[in-house]
Structure formats: structure tokens, C-alpha cells
């Protein structure tokens, strides 16, 4: 009988293999437990192969590819016990335009059941969102809310 950890690990792994392919538009990835008896104690290995490249340890990927693979894994952990809303604080900073589109695409897919609140500086992410909240410090050190429209930001 599987322990609760092993079951959690197996759920995370299923989500991860699927979410990775969706975010990378192809390729494949997997996480393996280095100690099958106790996957969490033994450490975890993450292998990833973006489309057209060779399978390698996630540590060999570029900065943005690593960030996207990490987002896939973090999101997979989230999906084990999804909450009604999810906050994403500047996960898009190292991503290029195509990867931002994939990322926003997956959020859209889940946004029917989950409210997403995304802190960002990226115009493309803003364009793909349903609405914007602007925060300013008209007075230094004091935060205030302001309405913002996308055209203002361009």
C-alpha cells in the first residue's frame, strides 16, 4: 500500500508530465524519486527535454527554460490540492513572448474554476489578463489603488 507521500508524489508526477508538455508546446519531462521507498526523503531528480533538444537534467536548461519547468512543477504541486484562488508573483519575468503566451494559456484554461491574481511588469501578460489593478505611491511610502487601462501602459 502506498504511503501518503508516495501517493502525493505520484499525483504531482502525473500533473507535471502533462503541464510541462502544455507549457513547452511539446517535448517531455519527468520527475523520479531517488529513493522509491521514500520519494521525498531521498531527493528528486527532474529530467526535461524541450522540443527538438536532448533529454537532460533540468539544471542544464537556459534561465527561462528552467523557470518554465519550475512553473510546471509548482503548478503540479498546486493541482494536488487546488484552492479557489491562486497568486502568482512575477513568475513571468524571465520568459520570452512565446512562453508567456503558453503560460497565460494554461492560466486561462484553469481560470474557469480558479481566480488568478498575477503581479507583473510584462505588457504581454497584462494583455492576456481579464482586468488590471494598478498600485501606485502618489505619496512616497504609501500604497494606493488606481484604475489602469492597457492603452495607458503602452
Amino acid at each position, binding site marked *: 500500500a502506498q504511503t501518503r507521500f508516495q501517493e502525493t508524489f505520484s499525483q*504531482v508526477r502525473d500533473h507535471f508530465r502533462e503541464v510541462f508538455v502544455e507549457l513547452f508546446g511539446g517535448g517531455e519531462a519527468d520527475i523520479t524519486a531517488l529513493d522509491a521507498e521514500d520519494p521525498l526523503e531521498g531527493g528528486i531528480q527532474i529530467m526535461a527535454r524541450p522540443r527538438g533538444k536532448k533529454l537532460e537534467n533540468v539544471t542544464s536548461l537556459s534561465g527561462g527554460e528552467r523557470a518554465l519547468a519550475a512553473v510546471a512543477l509548482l503548478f503540479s504541486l498546486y493541482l494536488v490540492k487546488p484552492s479557489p484562488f491562486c497568486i502568482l508573483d*512575477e513568475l513571468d519575468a524571465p520568459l520570452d513572448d512565446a512562453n508567456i503566451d503558453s503560460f497565460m494559456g494554461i492560466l486561462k484554461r484553469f481560470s474557469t474554476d480558479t481566480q488568478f491574481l498575477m503581479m507583473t511588469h510584462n505588457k504581454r501578460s497584462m494583455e492576456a489578463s481579464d482586468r488590471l489593478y494598478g498600485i501606485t505611491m502618489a505619496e512616497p511610502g504609501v500604497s494606493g489603488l488606481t484604475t489602469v487601462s492597457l492603452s495607458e501602459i503602452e
Partner: protein
Amino acid sequence: MRLKRLEILGFKSFADSFIMDFEPGISAVVGPNGCGKSNVADALRWVLGTQSAKQIRAEVMENVIFDGSSGRKPMGMAEVKVTFDNSDRSLALDFDEVSVTRRLFRSGVSEYLINGSKCRLMDVTDLMVDRGLGSAGYWILEAEMVKTILSPRAEDRRELFDEAA
């Protein structure tokens, strides 16, 4: 359940009353560096009962009270109130709307309220943990976690997995 409204006063950079009304879907929070975006995430973590000052980037919990700026004096209390739409009754309370309030005074006294009535911290966290909104949950994903989850040090990653289990 759905996030409906967030009201902040005296917490971190929110020296003036700060109110956000939420809708379904994807909302982007934008503004210059240091304007308070991550502070909104901290406010949500705090009102839902986190006991770790470190998790909300404070050295000690008292530091979340607005401590002044070049134009303003420090304040004496931090208060955050979050309101949920609970028409689907996914929160274990028989109300269409459920609000949670947390206050911290300079004296160190803390107060927790559910729908305006004083309660214990545990009443808040029990309610939230069931919905995946515990302080160890994955409902906030931040850029710093990218480093941790890819860290070659297995212990760092294990911590993150422990939280999901």
C-alpha cells in the same frame, strides 16, 4: 468559494485604507517597483493566519505595522479583512458571505474575527486549510520558489513537497 474583497489599513505600506474588489478570471496587479504589489500577497497570507514573519518578509511580526515614511508617522495597528463569496458553501459555515479579519497592535495583542465575531487563530486556519489555503499551501507561487524547487540540494525541494502532502 470566491475571493470577493480585500480591505487593508495599517499593514506594511497601506497607511491609507486600501480596498480591492475581485472578479472571476485572471487579474493582473501592476505598478512600479516598490509600490506594494507583493505586499498585497503578504496581506492575504497574513489575514489567513500565517504565523511565520519570515514568510511575509518581516523580521518579526510587529514589523508588518506601517512604520512611517518621510511624510507620515508610524501607525499603531495593522488590520486586514478578506471577504469571500460562499454561496456554494465550500467554506464550512452557513453564510453566503464569509469575512475574516486579523488585527495586530503595537502592544503585541492580536485579534481574529470571522464575520465580525472574535474567534481564535485556530478557527481561521482550520477553515482555510480545508480549502487548500493553509500557510503551507501552494496558493501563492513566487519567483524565489523557482530557485528552491530546482535546487540541486534535495533538502530544499523536499521542504516544498512536504508542504503539498
